[in-house]
């Protein structure tokens, strides 16, 4: 059984017990435990079920590479699936549940898949479920989806907060093991600004466990000294619990800092995503041990050798009483010694190498451990727990020589450098034949903004596995980094280290070498996704030869560990099957993140109220307080209408329209764009931007103008006011302000840079209010201070003055077809003017109206609306706006485009008014059908509706639309089939439904 040892465990504090729960069962651990170590301490070896066959699975690793021990963690707003037990620190009250089983971990219906495993090889689903057709969606797929997936879906809204942090460093070092610490020290002593991050809560990586002595001190002690030195340096920033998640172009590095996962009770953000810019990045991310591929290598109790000794050394936890060690290298002998030292039994060390191990083997034998060279595991027996191993010759086909009872197996297939971060941004790899590993090819690093390499691997991550050489390599990396910065690297004294001589590793990709199909079908490569040696071989056999094909066909390496344990073994098997060298096969692409990072941390602060900027006018509070039903317009929210108690949206809109037409309506028009264009060439410039002639506009006058894109399409419209000889005020649509401002700057800066024009976006300087209706003049006269009589301020004229004490610009323009004014005052005065207008307008039933009332009223007048009548495919000529296109001008933006064949085509649909014969309202977006169908069998159409409303003024439905040769077909009727099944027959009429003579606005 696995249990807590009476002594040892450098990470745990036995004086600080914690209580946590697993599948509802209350268990005890110590502060410093990971969930995995604490579960092992409670003899909970089985921690989950596999993805495809639902096989019982125990923990195999002790760190980020763990594929099996994934948990549903927490409750409610703090629930999170797929949490790795090996990287989860236990805390009081932690609640974990195992995943992917029903009804429970011990007894799982889904395990039935396991019995049929033979019928479910790689890609079986591509070859089956073909008939009957409907069955895939209705029967097969739902079943597959149910048995797939891992953790439960969260339900509640996230109860935590997250944040980002921008940080800049000369050198960022990823990995706080010995190599990372040394590289950081070298770089820091040479004067570089250094950031060092470690994903673990502890510094030192493997050194503390495997370490030996440095400068005569135990590695662990040396590490603390090194950390103390770095902490004392001004120019060094040290972070634990922060993982280097991804390396991106131009030295962009994501640091994923887990602030509260181990202490959820504390205030503050749960995760912080560091967005780091580093001139140089040193990847000291260590190495990951490889499993060996033998039958039953996934039975709970089979673990990586390094992990098994981590649990002993770091947590004082033994995985079993009798541990069989199986290896192809010397490193695993350390585990045997650790087990022995813990007072437990190692019945045998199986060394697949014919020649066996070196000094380590002798030491093991001296310690009384039986060591068998050239031997392998034919098969592990046991279901939910290892019972025994059957031993065979590595060279053979698996003939069993002996069976040895044990409850744990420590395996080691050698170590693979963690090259992910090196590779994210294009760093290339080389195959190291001697150590059978891919390591960074320092001659082909990722290239940064300057075209130079910006990532430097160090230590084990660089394929340097022994510690002494690793330290030198780390020092070299530090020097290389500072030299790249143009600093001179200071010489740093490296510690004395005694390196034990090791016998070379011998690659073992299948155990035993001649294993037949039966064994290969039980030899796991990818634990979580249930990919076995036989699956990879099948893929190769069927022609899925590229490593990408094999990956996708078998799902090898596509699990939540992204193949950290399986990729090398898998592509080695693939290469052997294809009879080609491993480098010919190559690797799949390494993509960020290194291990999964919370989506919450990526969103950062941007959620809820600050998900996106919400722009507010000075009157926004009033709108909120007065029943506004808002609609988003760009980043603004404008009042669509103001609902009163018991009123529907539709009723509210009608009320607002009638009140305005009958007496007085007030509109918050502050969002309209207001661009100031000034300079000797301002007129000439606006003549190019607008289709109209603007240079002839007289000071104090207003003119409605159209803007087109260079591609000819109508892009914006608005009233242009000439404030003085050199200065124009250009009103744009609400959505258009920033866009058109940018548009103007672009042309001024990149095409006509010699023209003397300045543009400023004054949109928000001014609060603007539409004062609309027959009584609008009266209410302004009540405020007093400015003569707004017909004589003093005619239609389409502008004046400025102190209106009732407000610094006002007054434009006599009308979008509703009534007598109306737009009053602009500095934003700081906006709310006061708004209130004053309601006070003065009380006797006229002053009524605030929203965007929908504005829409309906302009439609009643046949005025177009950018975004309704236009959709990016419409030119002014389509809308009967030719009158606004100057014939005198040789050129303006869009003019040339409008001369193209398709745009000059007389067959283009033209804007007209539409009136249903029965007064009903044509549905939004309806099309007018024509006879017959086109070559693709689609019903022919002859037009479409662009705006359609119920007009309370006229008491019937009105609409505008684009109709083929519309203007020539006045009085004809066309049919609009609705999605509601009805057909709406409408008469083609003039688009001006209300006050066609324009008498009302011109009084």
């Amino acid at each position, binding site marked *: 059984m696995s249990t807590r040892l009476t002594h040892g465990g450098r990470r745990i504090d036995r004086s600080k017990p914690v209580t946590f729960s697993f599948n509802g069962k209350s268990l005890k651990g110590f502060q410093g435990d990971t969930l995995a170590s604490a579960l092992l301490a409670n003899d909970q070896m089985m921690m989950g079920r596999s993805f495809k066959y639902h096989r019982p699975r125990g923990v195999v690793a002790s760190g980020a590479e763990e594929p099996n021990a994934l948990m549903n963690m927490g409750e409610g707003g703090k629930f999170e699936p797929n949490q790795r037990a090996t990287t989860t620190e236990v805390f009081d009250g932690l609640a974990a549940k195992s995943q992917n089983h029903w009804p429970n971990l011990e007894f799982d219906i889904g395990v039935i898949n396991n019995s049929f495993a033979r019928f479910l090889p790689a890609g079986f689903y591509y070859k089956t479920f073909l008939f009957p057709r409907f069955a895939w969606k209705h029967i097969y797929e739902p079943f597959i989806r149910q048995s797939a997936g891992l953790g439960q879906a969260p339900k509640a809204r996230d109860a935590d907060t997250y944040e980002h942090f921008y940080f800049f460093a000369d050198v960022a070092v990823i990995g706080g093991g010995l190599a990372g610490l040394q590289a950081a020290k070298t770089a820091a002593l040479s004067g570089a600004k250094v950031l060092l991050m470690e994903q673990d809560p502890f510094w030192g990586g493997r050194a503390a466990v495997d370490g030996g002595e440095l400068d005569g001190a135990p590695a662990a002690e040396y590490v603390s000294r090194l950390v103390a030195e770095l902490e004392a340096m001004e120019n060094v920033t040290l972070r634990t619990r922060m993982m280097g998640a991804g390396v991106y172009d131009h030295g*962009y590095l994501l640091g994923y800092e887990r602030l509260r996962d181990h202490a959820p009770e504390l205030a503050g953000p749960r995760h912080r995503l560091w967005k780091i810019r580093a001139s140089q990045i040193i990847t000291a991310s260590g190495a990951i041990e490889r499993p060996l591929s033998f039958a039953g290598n996934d039975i709970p109790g089979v673990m990586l050798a390094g992990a098994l000794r981590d649990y002993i050394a770091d947590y004082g936890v033994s995985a079993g009483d009798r541990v069989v060690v199986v290896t192809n290298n010397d490193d695993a002998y350390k585990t045997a010694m650790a087990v022995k030292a813990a007072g437990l039994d190692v019945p045998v060390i199986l060394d697949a190498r014919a020649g066996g191990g070196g000094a380590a083997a002798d030491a093991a034998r001296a310690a009384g451990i039986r060591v068998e060279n050239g031997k392998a595991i034919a098969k592990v027996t046991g279901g939910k727990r290892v019972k025994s191993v059957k031993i065979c010759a590595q060279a053979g086909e698996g003939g069993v020589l002996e069976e040895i009872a044990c409850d744990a197996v420590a395996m080691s297939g050698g170590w693979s450098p963690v090259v992910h971060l090196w590779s994210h941004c294009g760093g290339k790899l080389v195959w190291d034949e001697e150590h059978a590993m891919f390591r960074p090819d320092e001659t082909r690093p990722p290239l940064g*903004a300057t075209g130079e390499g910006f990532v430097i691997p160090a230590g084990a991550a660089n394929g340097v596995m022994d510690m002494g050489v690793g330290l030198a390599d780390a020092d070299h990396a530090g020097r290389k980094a500072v030299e790249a910065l143009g600093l001179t690297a200071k010489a740093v004294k490296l510690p004395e280290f005694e390196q034990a001589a090791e016998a070379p590793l011998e690659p073992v990709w299948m155990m035993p070498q001649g294993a037949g199909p039966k064994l290969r079908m039980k030899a796991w490569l990818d634990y979580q996704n249930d990919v076995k040696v036989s699956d990879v071989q099948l893929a190769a056999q069927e022609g899925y030869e590229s490593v990408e094909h094999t990956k996708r066909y078998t799902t090898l390496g596509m699990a939540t560990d992204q193949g950290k344990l399986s990729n090398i073994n898998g592509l080695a098997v693939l290469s052997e099957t294809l009879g080609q060298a491993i480098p010919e096969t190559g690797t799949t692409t390494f993509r960020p993140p290194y291990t999964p990072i919370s989506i919450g941390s990526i969103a950062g602060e941007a959620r809820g109220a600050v998900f996106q900027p919400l722009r507010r006018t000075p009157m926004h509070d009033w709108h909120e307080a007065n029943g506004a039903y808002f609609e988003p317009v760009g980043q603004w929210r404008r009042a669509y209408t103001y609902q009163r108690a018991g009123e529907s949206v539709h009723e509210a809109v009608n009320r607002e329209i009638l009140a305005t037409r009958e007496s007085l309506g007030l509109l918050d028009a502050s969002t309209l764009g207001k661009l100031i264009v000034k300079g000797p060439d301002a007129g000439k410039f606006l003549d190019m931007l607008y289709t109209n002639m603007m240079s002839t506009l007289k000071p104090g006058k207003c003119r409605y103008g159209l803007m087109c894109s260079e*591609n000819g399409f109508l892009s914006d419209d608005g009233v242009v006011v000439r404030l003085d000889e050199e200065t124009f005020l250009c009103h744009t649509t609400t959505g258009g302000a920033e866009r058109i401002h940018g548009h103007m*700057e*672009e042309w001024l800066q*990149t095409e006509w840079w010699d023209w003397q024009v300045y543009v400023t976006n004054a949109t928000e300087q001014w609060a603007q209010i539409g004062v609309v209706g027959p009584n609008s003049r009266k209410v302004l006269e009540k405020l007093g201070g400015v003569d707004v009589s017909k004589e003093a301020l005619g239609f389409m004229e502008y004046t400025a003055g102190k209106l009732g004490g407000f610094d006002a610009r007054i434009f006599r323009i009308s979008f509703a077809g009534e007598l109306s004014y737009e009053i602009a005052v500095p934003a700081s005065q906006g709310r006061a003017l708004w209130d004053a207008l309601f006070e003065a307008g009380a006797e006229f039933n002053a009524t605030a109206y929203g965007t929908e009332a504005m829409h309906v009223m302009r439609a009643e007048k046949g005025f177009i609306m950018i975004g309704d009548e236009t959709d990016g495919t419409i030119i002014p000529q389509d809308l009967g706006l030719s009158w606004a296109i100057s014939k005198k001008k040789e050129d303006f933006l869009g003019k040339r485009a409008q001369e193209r064949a398709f745009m000059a085509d007389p067959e283009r649909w033209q804007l007209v008014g539409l009136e249903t014969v029965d007064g009903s309202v044509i549905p939004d977006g309806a099309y007018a059908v024509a006879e017959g169908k086109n070559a693709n069998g689609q019903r022919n159409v002859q037009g479409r509706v662009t705006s359609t409303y119920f007009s309370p003024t006229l008491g019937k439905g009105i609409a505008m639309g684009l109709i083929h040769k519309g203007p020539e077909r006045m009085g004809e009727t066309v049919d609009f089939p609705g999605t509601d099944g009805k057909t709406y027959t409408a008469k083609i009429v003039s688009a001006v439904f209300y006050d066609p003579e324009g008498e009302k606005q011109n009084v």
Partner: protein
Amino acid sequence: MLILECPYCGVKGEETEFHAGGEAHLKRFGPGSSDEDFETYLFMRENPKGVHLERWRHANGCGKWFHAARCTMTLEVFGTYSAQTLEPPKEIKDILTAKRPGWSWRNFK
């Protein structure tokens, strides 16, 4: 995530401060130009694997448009320069020649 240096305000900012503006040194064709010239001006785009000249705006910054010489294969930025020029200045061309011997872009070499 690119870093660009605005030649106007001297800020070395990250991409999110800037707005990409597409191909640089477009020659505008207006009324009177041929259909082909006009199509080329609006739609036919340089899309090289390698050296590219493009326009950017320091949108969340000084607001100025400028040009950048960049490699579309490595994302290396060779340099940035004024928007008020019809072709890349000599120092930019020299860098390109040094780093990408034999480079050419449209009619520039």
